[in-house]
């Protein structure tokens, strides 16, 4: 299937938004004004966007601690996210969750997650709801290479298969879990593991938006058709530390600059689109300007926004009590 011009523009806008959002957060974090743990998705944009372009508000995703990109790709309000990360009362979660817990159920975003491997079982539940109520929705669990080893992920693969759930497991393998290489920590590989459960699986170059989008489309179609779960093993790169403040001494000193040079998903996207003459340079420039303004405004308004009040501490624990 050919992507429309609108799809291409949307994909570029989202990838660019994620990139600028994350690079700006990197700078804002350095000022000391952002509390807590922040894990950046820069470098991995083609995965979240490539997958989520196949989804709608009726579909669910479950994310990880590295969740900003998934949120944006699933349509969460960018300014609301920024406010949340700054801990503001009008943030997407009222300032109660922060970077690691951004969620927007109305957008089908079941939350970033502080627990590695927390998402896959939840997404089996979302898929069960879709199947039981016949909503036509599908559910996507993003999980890292590190998270792919958790028992919860293994058990979810099995459950999704035996219940024939409309789930897509997306293993985002950025080569590292914290300071540990996936080449050491992951025995075997994700595709062969999935094969053990009779789950169709494919490895894909996560720097290539088009490749991710294509294999994700097949997996989503399979799920929507009632043909059960799939797994994508997406190989990609993270540009910053595990969290903001990580000195990354476990990497080659020039590893990231080489990746930015040769494998950048935004560059590859532009090159491909330009070569095929699908979009005009002016269209990219216009999006770049929009995105710059969007992020500038989000930061400025987040900085100016009110913090939660004392009463907020005690609300939202229960529906009724």
């Amino acid at each position: 299937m050919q992507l429309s011009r609108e799809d291409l523009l949307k994909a570029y806008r989202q990838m660019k938004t994620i990139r600028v959002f994350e690079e700006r957060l990197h700078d804002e974090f350095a000022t000391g004004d952002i509390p807590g743990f922040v894990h950046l998705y820069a470098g991995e944009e083609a995965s979240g966007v490539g997958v989520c372009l196949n989804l709608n508000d009726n579909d669910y995703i479950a994310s990880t601690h590295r969740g900003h990109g998934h949120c944006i790709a699933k349509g969460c309000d960018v300014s609301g996210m920024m406010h949340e990360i700054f801990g503001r009362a009008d943030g997407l979660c009222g300032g109660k969750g922060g970077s690691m817990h951004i969620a927007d159920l109305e957008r089908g975003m079941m939350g970033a997650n502080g627990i590695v491997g927390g998402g896959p079982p939840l997404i089996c539940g979302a898929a069960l709801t879709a199947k039981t109520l016949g909503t036509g929705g599908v559910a996507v669990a993003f999980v890292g290479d590190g998270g792919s080893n958790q028992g919860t992920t293994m058990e979810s693969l099995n459950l999704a298969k035996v219940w024939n759930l409309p789930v897509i497991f997306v293993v985002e393998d950025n080569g590292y879990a914290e300071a540990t290489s996936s080449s050491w920590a992951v025995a075997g590989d994700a595709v062969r593991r999935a094969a053990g459960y009779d789950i169709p699986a494919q490895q894909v170059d996560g720097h290539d938006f088009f490749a991710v989008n294509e294999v994700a489309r097949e997996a989503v179609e399979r799920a929507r058709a009632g043909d059960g779960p799939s797994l994508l093993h997406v190989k990609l790169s993270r540009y910053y530390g595990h969290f903001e403040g990580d000195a990354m001494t476990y990497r080659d000193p020039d590893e990231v600059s080489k990746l930015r040079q040769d494998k950048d998903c935004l560059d590859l996207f532009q090159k491909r689109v330009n070569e095929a003459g699908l979009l005009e340079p002016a269209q990219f420039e216009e999006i770049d300007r929009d995105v710059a303004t969007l992020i500038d405004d989000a930061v400025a308004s987040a900085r100016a926004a009110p913090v939660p009040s004392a009463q907020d501490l005690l609300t939202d624990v229960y529906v009724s009590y």
Partner: protein
Amino acid sequence: MAKKSVRQAINEALASEMRRDPRVVIMGEDIAGGMGAPGEDDAWGGPLGVTKGLLGEFGRDRVLDTPITESAFIGAAAGAAATGLRPVAELMFVDFMGVCFDQIYNQAAKFRYMFGGKAVTPLVVRTMYGAGLRAASQHSQCLYPMFTHIPGLKVVIPSSAYEAKGLLIQAIRDDDPVVFFEHKAMYDEEEEVPDEAYTIPFGEANITREGDDVTVVAFGRMVQFANQAADKLAKEGITCTVIDPRTTSPLDEDTILEEVAATGRLVVVDEASPRCNMATDISALVAQRAFSALKAPVRMVTPPHTPVPFAADLEDLYIPGPAQIEQAIREVAA
């Protein structure tokens, strides 16, 4: 004596026990770091640098990095403990107990009893707890009451660098499974710590302030806040006995009861969620065994019954501090 941080004190305790006993091994996620990666070995030395340098001295056979599979490696530590090693496993944040709790509370904790006294399980689980780092709901809990609830586990909550070193060495030499709680906001706090190894016995409370008017029992990071409140009130003539029980299991009930008998007034300070926590436990103890000594109702200083919030202003409101402790002491002393 040199001043050392809590981080250094724990590192020294691990190093000295690993030197002393080749059966002591440590394991956890990135406790060294750099496995299979192109850059430096020991790149992290633990997420907050607590185990840094141990790889250099003891090597990969005794400093075991693990995949992110808590159920497997905490369980493996329990199994290794029951069969001849003395593992110290790091559960990075105690909040992750949900992933591996079965291996701790149904397996390690119960071996000895279920097997008719035949098993010895010298397991230590080191874990980070507590609020204050804006780490939000899944990385800020205390949860030690849940471990205290389980027969077969010993539960240790050091309140300072000196305490941490002596209690951790005791934990490693102890033949029962021990869960050792490190407050993540305390790693940089310093005090004088001996270079040589020493132990602090479990179940023997430490009295950090002596006074006549009110007994304050506090745990972990709350001990320093209780001391601050006591010091402030002492200037006004309200004097407090501050008790740091050091371990919640075993619990030094005698010291608490003796001191409450002497003052007749009790404030319990606990950073854990307020229902079924150490504050309720100690209040129940005193209600049963020192009721007639009480001159005022017991006061508990705890956070509210909510998850730990992210926003700084909310988290600061959430955590009990010296001001609330002072207020509670004034109320029971009035």
